[in-house]
C-alpha cells in the first residue's frame, strides 16, 4: 500500500512537471513588454517560493532539535534530519533562483548582476545555507548538530528580509508581482500556467525533500549502530 502511494505520488508529480512545462511554453502567451524571456518566471519564482518553504522547514527542524536534544533523543534526531533535508534541498532551489535570475536579467536589464537589495540578500541567504552544509559535512564532534541548528535559525532570519527587500528598498529587481502595490499582478491568461508550475515545483520539491529526509534517517541509524558496535567491541 505504501509503495503504491509513493508510486502514485511520483507519477502525479511527473505528470504535473510535464503539464507545467506545456503550460509555460505553449499555453502562456508572449509578454507584451518582455516577449519570450519572461517565461523564465515559471521556473524562477516557484523555485524561490519552494526554497523559502524549505528553509522554514529547516528552521522548524533546528528549533525542534534544540528543544528535544536533552530529553527526547529520537525526536531530536528526527528534527535534525528535517533541518538538514530542508537546508540542502532549499539550497538546490535557491541555486536555481540565483542562476535563472541573472539569465533573465541579462536580457531584461542588459546586465547579469547588480548589488541591489533583493539580489544581495538572496546571495547572502544562499551563502549562509551553504556554510550550514559545509559545517555539517566537514566539522566533527558532538556539538556539530547544535552548532548547525543555531546557524540554521540565524539563516532563516534572512528569508523575511529577502521577501521584503523589494518592498522596503528601491531595487533593480522588479516590484512584487503578487501582493504588491496597486496595479501589480499578472494577466489572467498567464496566471493559470504560473499556478500549474507552482504546484508542479512544490510537488517535485516535496518528493526530493522526503527522499533526502529518509537518506539522512538511514545515515543516522547506521551511525548509531556503528557507535554501538564500537562500544561493545571496546
Amino acid at each position, binding site marked *: 500500500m505504501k509503495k503504491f502511494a509513493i508510486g502514485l505520488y511520483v507519477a502525479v508529480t511527473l505528470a504535473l512537471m510535464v503539464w507545467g*512545462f506545456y503550460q509555460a511554453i505553449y499555453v502562456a502567451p508572449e509578454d507584451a513588454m518582455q*516577449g*519570450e*524571456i519572461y*517565461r*523564465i518566471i515559471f*521556473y*524562477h519564482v516557484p*523555485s524561490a517560493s519552494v526554497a523559502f518553504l524549505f528553509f522554514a522547514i529547516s528552521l522548524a527542524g533546528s528549533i525542534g532539535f534544540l528543544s528535544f536534544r536533552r530529553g527526547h533523543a529520537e525526536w531530536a534526531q528526527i528534527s535534525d534530519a528535517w533541518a538538514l533535508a530542508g537546508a540542502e*534541498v532549499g539550497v*538546490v532551489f535557491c*541555486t*536555481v533562483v540565483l*542562476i*535563472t535570475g541573472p*539569465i*533573465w536579467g*541579462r*536580457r531584461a536589464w542588459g546586465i547579469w548582476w547588480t548589488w541591489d537589495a533583493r539580489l544581495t540578500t538572496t546571495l547572502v541567504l544562499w551563502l549562509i545555507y551553504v556554510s550550514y552544509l559545509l559545517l555539517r559535512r566537514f566539522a566533527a564532534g558532538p556539538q556539530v548538530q547544535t552548532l548547525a541548528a543555531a546557524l540554521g535559525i540565524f539563516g532563516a532570519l534572512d528569508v523575511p528580509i529577502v521577501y521584503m527587500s523589494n518592498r522596503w528598498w528601491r531595487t533593480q529587481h522588479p516590484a512584487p508581482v503578487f501582493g504588491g502595490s496597486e496595479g501589480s499582478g499578472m494577466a489572467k491568461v498567464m496566471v493559470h500556467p504560473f499556478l500549474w508550475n507552482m504546484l508542479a515545483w512544490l510537488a*517535485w520539491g516535496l518528493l*526530493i525533500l522526503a*527522499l*533526502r529526509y*529518509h*537518506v539522512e534517517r*538511514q*545515515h543516522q*541509524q*547506521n551511525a548509531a*549502530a*556503528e557507535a554501538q*558496535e564500537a562500544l561493545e567491541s571496546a
Partner: protein
Amino acid sequence: MDPAAILDHQFVTAAYIITWTLQLGYLAWLGLKWRAEKRAAARRTHHAR
C-alpha cells in the same frame, strides 16, 4: 525571425536546461547516497549474523 526573439528563446532554453540539470543531478547524487546507506546497513546486518 527577429534576432532579439531568437536570443530570448536561447536564454529561456538555457535557463530551463540548467534548472533540470541541477535538479536531476541532485536527484542522482541522492539516489547514489541512498544506495550507499542501504548497502552499509545490509553489510552490518550480514556481519551481525
